[in-house]
């Protein structure tokens, strides 16, 4: 190998030396686990409908059950294993959102309920909330102005 003289040369060399994440395998696992979580959601939805709930209530129940389950699995040290395996498959559904709030809450409990749990709970989910809500407001405005 030739002697490296510039940072650019080194950066190119390091890129070549560093293995990439197994994207195909990750995508496949994300696909089927994500699909499975959504199927579970649909089963809960259908069950609620069968029990006579209206559509809005069914959606609410689905969210509550999935959030509750992921929070429980996070606390039991199981969700991080699912997340490691499935990546975006468990991260993108509402399950990932629940995990991203419960995980720091557990981690920072040692700093107390106010400055620990309270202050640090949204360190991971914070950006999702900020940009999610901001986007919703902008789209809402556009819809109001142009769609009427």
């Amino acid at each position, binding site marked *: *190998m030739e002697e490296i003289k510039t940072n650019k040369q*080194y*950066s190119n060399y*390091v890129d070549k*030396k560093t293995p990439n994440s197994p994207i195909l395998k990750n995508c496949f696992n994300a696909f089927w686990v994500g699909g499975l979580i959504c199927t579970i959601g649909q089963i809960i939805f259908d069950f609620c409908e069968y029990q006579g709930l209206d559509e809005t209530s069914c959606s609410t129940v689905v969210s509550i059950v999935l959030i509750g389950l992921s929070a429980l699995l*996070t606390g039991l040290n199981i*969700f*991080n294993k699912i997340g490691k395996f499935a990546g975006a498959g*468990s991260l993108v559904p509402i399950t990932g959102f629940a995990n991203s709030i419960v995980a*720091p809450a557990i981690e920072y409990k040692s700093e107390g309920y106010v400055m620990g749990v309270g202050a640090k709970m949204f360190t991971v989910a914070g950006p999702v909330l900020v940009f999610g809500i901001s986007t919703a407001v902008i789209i809402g405005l556009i819809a109001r102005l142009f769609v009427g």
Partner: protein
Amino acid sequence: MEHLGKQTIKLDKPVTILETACIVGPKESDGPMAQYFDQCLQDEFWGEKTWEKAESKILKETVNTLISKSGVPANQINYCFAGDLLNQCISSSFGLRELNIPFFGVFGACSTFAESMCLGSVFVSSGSATNVLCATSSHFCSAEKQFRFPLELGNQRPPSSQWTVTGSGAAILSSTGDGPYITHITPGKIIDLGITDANNMGAAMAPAFVDTLINHFNDTGRNPSYYDAIISGDLGYIGKDIAIDLALSKGYDIKDNYYDCGVLMFDKKNQDTHSGGSGCACLGTIFSGYFFKQLKERKLKRILLIATGALMNSTSSQQGESIPGIAHALSIEV
């Protein structure tokens, strides 16, 4: 003491590494090096309420083990040099606060153990101290919490990421004793080749390792074959590969006698540790547990110990700063 070349110090008065001790966490206890450690913990908390307290306790108990193994009571230790990764080195200062020994807090990221031994050996060799204690620690959970994400977060680690070693290593350097001796130290410069990926520490630190290595050879007139083993701290699989390439491009072939503690610590295949171990305790425990015993038993006679550190924090990473690396070398001979 004599200054050699650009950055090496030759210790005319030999400094003996009198004794070492180490304690490791559960994952390290399942690894291939487990048999060499003084104590293997089964619980990452070790009965404490927080990761930080557990890390302090590991360091404290390692030092207690060292004191009882060496037979040198705390009141005969003149100074201690210690450091770790937690903000303002709290594991060391909390772990050693009851020891009543004058204390220097040292920070060199994962190079801390070698940095402590460099400073300690100069104190001993100059006659300023008879016995000096050097210690370091790291903890996977407290390091993840400070530098990355909460442990329960369900995310994926890239293949270049490394696994912070839970444990602590400590050594007593002394003006008495019959070796292994620290004969030369080569403190390293800060080297930054612009790597910004905090998940590729090996690549960020490898150039610093090679710089110190080559300066050591230039200053002392030695070459790689002088040593039975050249040992880096925690470059991991990727960093080790890069270091071999970089050294070769500068005319030094180290492939045959070069070991990395991050590679030695875990079983990559079964322990899911990606590019290998890292953290202050990686070199701290493997040197204290394995290489020191090899020297004592004269299975190895000359080693060059080079600990590397990545001098960044989570703020500098988020601000897009590159990661400066550092490496300090000690030549240890029997």
